């Protein structure tokens, strides 16, 4: 809560209770359905950020805000498209690289159409009904995020820490490890690891995973992760979470982006 927040070198984390009984699950979503929706939202944010030429920190912050939000609110009440827009809009301000509303709306609209495999040639008419509706949705979403998160918009990211760890382990010049570990940090935003673990633990885990896949042995006596204050259990857990992303392709064209699409989708899923 804002009232209790202190110097925030740490991120707000979930309690086990919050993780097991999310608002969406209480609202009739299965775990798989909720995961898919979260992944789609993060995919939308990351892609929009690239098109808007935002720095990666803004996209990372936006995805974390998005993830946090849906532990406070249900996917039945808030549309993934709107909250994604609100997250980008807010994160861009938090990270001091504000984006123009007009660009944001057009980019998100374009991506939503691509997700649905619809023709994407025309940008939205400026001041048209659709544009106006989306702009409004973004402003409201921003407010909802602030409200539900009690203005706790501070996000610590593991990118810098990871680079330091790579240096400590003499891995910065390795041909694949730094890039791969960085990629895992980006992809990990689509899972809940950023709201279950602190940034240094996540940084350890992606380095561990990347080094393991490259077949590079690292000191185990004492184990290097212990020197960096991470436990093997956490490191393996995070790595496992991130890896699950690659075993299932997201049925993105069928997932509901707007609130009026949610009910029919849930019904069709039930069959």
């Amino acid at each position: 809560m804002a009232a209790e927040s202190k110097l925030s070198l740490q991120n707000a984390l979930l309690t086990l209770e919050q993780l097991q009984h999310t608002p969406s699950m209480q609202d009739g979503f299965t775990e798989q359905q909720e995961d898919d929706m979260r992944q789609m939202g993060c995919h939308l944010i990351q892609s929009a950020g690239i098109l808007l030429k935002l720095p990666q920190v803004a996209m990372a912050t936006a995805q974390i805000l998005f993830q946090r939000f849906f532990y406070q609110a249900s996917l039945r009440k808030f549309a993934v498209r709107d909250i994604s827009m609100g997250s980008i809009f807010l994160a861009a301000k938090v990270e001091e690289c504000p984006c123009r509303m007009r660009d944001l709306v057009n980019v998100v609209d374009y991506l939503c159409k691509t997700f649905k495999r619809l023709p994407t040639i025309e940008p939205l008419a400026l001041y048209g009904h659709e544009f106006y509706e989306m702009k409004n949705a973004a402003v409201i979403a921003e407010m909802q995020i602030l409200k539900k998160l009690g203005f706790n918009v501070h996000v610590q990211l593991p990118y810098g820490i990871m680079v330091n760890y790579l240096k400590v382990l003499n891995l910065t010049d390795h041909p694949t490890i730094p890039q791969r570990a960085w990629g895992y940090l980006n992809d990990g935003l689509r899972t809940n690891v950023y709201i279950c673990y602190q940034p240094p633990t996540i940084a350890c885990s992606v380095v561990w995973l990347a080094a393991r896949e490259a077949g590079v042995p690292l000191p185990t006596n004492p184990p290097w992760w212990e020197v960096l204050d991470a436990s093997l259990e956490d490191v393996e857990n995070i790595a496992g979470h991130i890896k699950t992303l690659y075993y299932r392709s997201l049925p993105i064209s069928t997932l509901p982006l707007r609130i009026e699409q949610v009910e029919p989708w849930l019904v069709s899923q039930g069959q």
Partner: protein
Amino acid sequence: MASVAASLSSRSAKQKAEVARNYQKDGKVGEGAYAVVYSGIQLSTKRKVAIKKIKLGQFRDGLDMSAIREVKTLQELRHPNVVELVEVFYQKTNLNLVLEFLESDLEMVIKDKSIVFMPGDVKHWMLMTLRGLDHCHRNWILHRDMKPNNLLIGHDGQLKIADFGLARDFGDRGRQLTSQVVTRWYRAPELLFGAREYGYGVDIWAVGCIFAELLLRNPYLPGNSDMDQINIMFQALGTPTEADWPGLSTLPNFMQYRQYPKTPLRLLFTAAGADTLELLESMLIYDPNKRISAREALLHPYFFNKPRPTKLENLPKPARETEQAVLKRKAAELGELTNAPKKR
């Protein structure tokens, strides 16, 4: 999970309503670009607070950047010389920031000509300003709007830095910042020349100007346009050369300017001691890299030499204004705001 350092908010709607009910709004005390400020009471503690009601939804671009900056930075800072953010709450569609309430500010004290400043008074105000600023800088936060009006003074005499609407973190080198910050009279030379990379030096320059203002009882460099500001600054401190300030001529808005000689500070500040002038001078060095830091300034002999800083309870305060006088003055200030030199 592994650790629950700061768990996500899980307050129910009912609890949230109670938070709002804990505050009673009284009179309006000011109005800014994005917020209206009320004085109020925290009912559970009877503590007097300032409630900053942020206008939401009236803007095309959602919540104002300055509101986000203010909350983001104040959540991180806890220091006796930085204004405290007590709480943030929502009421209907309004966002309310609850801040400590302090009745006056340094500008009011300077303007109250019935008060005579003792050297020890100035020393204590400078000490508190620099302590608060050092805390900001050590947390990698630039204030970017240091001026007497933003240094609030409580009934106990404690000075606190307020208004973090322009504040931002500056740890990340190579990121471009805007030079359109700080109220003009307190704006550092690198900003006037359009520098896009700068650091804590901009706040220190402003503190130097405040220091000078405390000694003079008048604004030190009161330019009435950006050009005039440069002119007045050069007249007072001499025109800088490439030797004084390497890299000067590469700044975006640099221009050749007529050469003014440097006048020694002691000709203007006739009553100030040698240590006072030495500290002032090190804050007003043109080259931001040579300018003193808040930390170094706090260790300057000025703060250890006699006279000692005046005790908190003995610091002068502006005459207690009647409610009506406050409203009148605030109204006058509001009118002034539209004309007065202002950032952005």
